[in-house]
């Protein structure tokens, strides 16, 4: 048994899981360094290797340990926590990481704007210094959990006269500030999974600035790299995911089968298995200390595959494919898409190639960083942001 496994057993022995208050119990887990084991001692971790986390999480899961508020991990664990750890002051780390982990404080991301999607660095939300505070005005969009978040990681422009990557600063934004207005953003599915966030005269103390003034792009890049690592790094069983929904229908409804659909289903089954193995190979590489570049491929392939599967699935349903369960505007309770109707999945998965980096941007990244192809000439990096065409 490893040291870590022993520590988990010890902790479980000392902290009964049954009937425990999740926040208190998770707080104790944080204090024991078993929250993010690769974080330093005192900040939820034990300075262990990143790859050790999975075994610890699995051990707690197997012991029916209290799990965090489902809203907490979305932005908090994967994006805010590592960024605060890397760029935060001691005070910020002490203040924010523990309640982030326990789920007392949910986080959201205030990056994208209507005019700054793929080209995030062109964002227009302004932050103007006023004594010990910054006054923030602008509009953010595609904010997951915005309506339940206590804090937001925010990038704003502090100097429009500099080229776009240079005039940005990163803040931790109090979502309870009266200038913050969170409105549901309805999607093509009829639901509002995301939010628009309007910021009007929001006052952010300079103490909640993360990193230096003008270094916002560097800090944001850390956040975004963590987003990409989060996606696609988990192991999966054969037929996990959307292909499972299609094969289930196929097996249960012989009357819907046609030769053309059979051919397409088998092709997609192969592609799904190939993607599963690709992700698994990535995971094995990470565990062996050989991180591969397949992560970018996995997200790209994932989007294409999900869209092809759900397109097939609608057709496979025949007459039922013409129907939809419910267009009513509502807030989704979870992301359990496999149990939604085929039409919903078809529409929702269209977002897979847009959210978290469009497929076009991923292809650019692969061409630049992996294939190291010659770059496209660019005209937007050296001129002041305020002079950019938009």
């Amino acid at each position, binding site marked *: 048994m490893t040291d870590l496994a022993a520590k988990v057993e010890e902790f479980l022995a000392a902290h009964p899981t049954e009937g425990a208050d999740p926040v208190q119990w998770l707080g104790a887990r944080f204090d024991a360094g078993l929250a993010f084991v690769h974080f330093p001692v005192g900040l939820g971790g034990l300075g262990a290797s990143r790859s050790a986390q999975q075994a610890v999480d699995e051990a707690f899961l197997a012991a029916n340990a209290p799990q965090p508020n489902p809203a907490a991990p979305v932005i908090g664990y994967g994006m805010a926590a590592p960024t605060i750890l890397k760029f935060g002051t001691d005070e910020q780390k002490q203040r924010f990481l523990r309640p982030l982990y326990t789920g007392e404080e949910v986080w959201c991301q205030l990056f*994208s704007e*209507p*005019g*700054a*999607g*793929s*080209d995030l660095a*062109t964002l227009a939300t302004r932050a103007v210094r006023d004594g010990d505070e910054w006054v923030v005005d602008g509009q953010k*969009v*595609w904010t997951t959990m915005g309506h339940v978040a206590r804090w937001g990681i925010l990038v704003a422009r502090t100097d429009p006269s500099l080229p776009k990557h240079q005039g940005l600063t990163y803040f931790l934004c109090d979502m309870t500030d009266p200038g913050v207005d969170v409105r549901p*953003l*309805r*999607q*093509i599915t*009829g639901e509002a999974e995301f939010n628009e966030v309007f910021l009007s005269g929001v006052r952010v103390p300079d103490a909640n600035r993360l990193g230096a003034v003008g270094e916002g792009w560097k800090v944001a890049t850390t956040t975004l790299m963590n987003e990409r690592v989060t996606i696609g790094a988990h192991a999966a069983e054969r037929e996990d995911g959307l292909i499972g929904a299609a094969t289930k229908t196929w097996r249960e409804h012989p009357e819907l089968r*046609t*030769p*053309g*659909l059979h051919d397409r289903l088998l092709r997609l089954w192969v592609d799904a298995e190939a993607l599963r193995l690709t992700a698994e190979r990535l995971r094995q590489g990470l565990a062996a200390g050989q991180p591969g570049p397949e992560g970018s491929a996995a997200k790209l392939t994932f989007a294409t595959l999900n*869209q092809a599967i759900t*397109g097939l699935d*609608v*057709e496979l349903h*025949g*007459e039922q*494919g*013409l*129907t*939809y*369960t*419910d*267009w009513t*505007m509502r807030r989704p309770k979870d992301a359990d898409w496999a149990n939604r109707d085929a*039409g919903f999945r*078809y*529409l929702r998965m*269209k*977002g897979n*190639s*847009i*959210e978290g980096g*469009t*497929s*076009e941007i991923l*292809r650019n990244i692969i061409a630049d960083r992996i294939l190291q192809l010659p770059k*496209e000439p*660019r*005209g*937007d990096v050296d*001129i002041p942001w305020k002079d*950019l*065409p*938009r």
Partner: protein
Amino acid sequence: MSDLLYDEVENDLRASVRDLLTDRAPWTSVLARVETDKPYDLELWRTLATEMGLAGLLVPESLGGAEASAREVAVVLEELGRAVTPTPFLGSAVLATSALLAAGDTETVSELAAGQRIGTLAVPLTTAPNAAFPGLVRVEDGKLTGRVGSVVDLEVADVVVVPAIGPDGPELHVVQTASAGVTVTPITPLDLTRRIATLELSGVESRKLSGDAEAALRKALATGAGLLAAEQLGVAQWCLDTTAEYVSTRHQFGRPIGSFQAIRHRLADLWASVSSAVAVSRAAADALATGSDVDIAVAVAASFCSELAVHAAEEALQLHGGIGMTWEHPVHLYLGRAKSSELALGTPEKHRDALAVFADLPA
């Protein structure tokens, strides 16, 4: 060889329909309407059907129609597709009208042609022209009983042409939806701009049509499938035009995104496909108008335009980026229309199955 161009009359017809739809049914009002309890714009329908006389394009003048042909109907459908207009045109002016004409009716078809009443055809919208005659409704003691799912435009229909199995086999009947024993249950559709409903008949009075029921139904479905291709072309054309416009104005990285070569190439490919869709759709409309080469022309157009419309809508959504994923942008109306239409009146695969027979390419 069929005439694949649009003539002057057809171009004028297109212009007047487009003007009307631009004025009366912009996408903002279409989107606003889909969540109300009046998803169809029946006032607009009356203008189209009665004032402009478009409900009777397929109907001879002797029966009160315009005695035009499938070519003109195709032009109207291109425009209705381009605007995803919620009207019962497909059900009433195409499916029911074709079935009635083919079955020798002279009574109901005149009412439909005049736009006084709205009709539809009681088959599941997924029915392909080469499908077996449906056995969903039976004639018992001279009355109709049965249940037909996903009947297009049914919730606004006054009259329904019902395929039924009688004592001697297939029959076509005309049923008034106001009759006793008729129940219409709307279904929530994936395509917000075209409604479907379930028809239940429990011992309903009807008028039996005299013509060959199987041939008439097949004719109506082939006409529907061949003309639906024109509507799908209209959907694809809107997606191409709107996306080309959007990428020309949306800036990222200091330039319009339409100046990025990958996007330019995708739209060029899409344009090439749309160009082909114009040709195959015209060929189908012309074949339906002349009665020559109908089987192959319809199967080619239906399979080609179905898949193209879905592809065009999917490209439009992707190239619009985040804004295309929002409810407040119209592209999802086109995606829903395209994807649903792919299932309607025979999937592309069903039409290719038919081609295997017509073109002598057996499995």
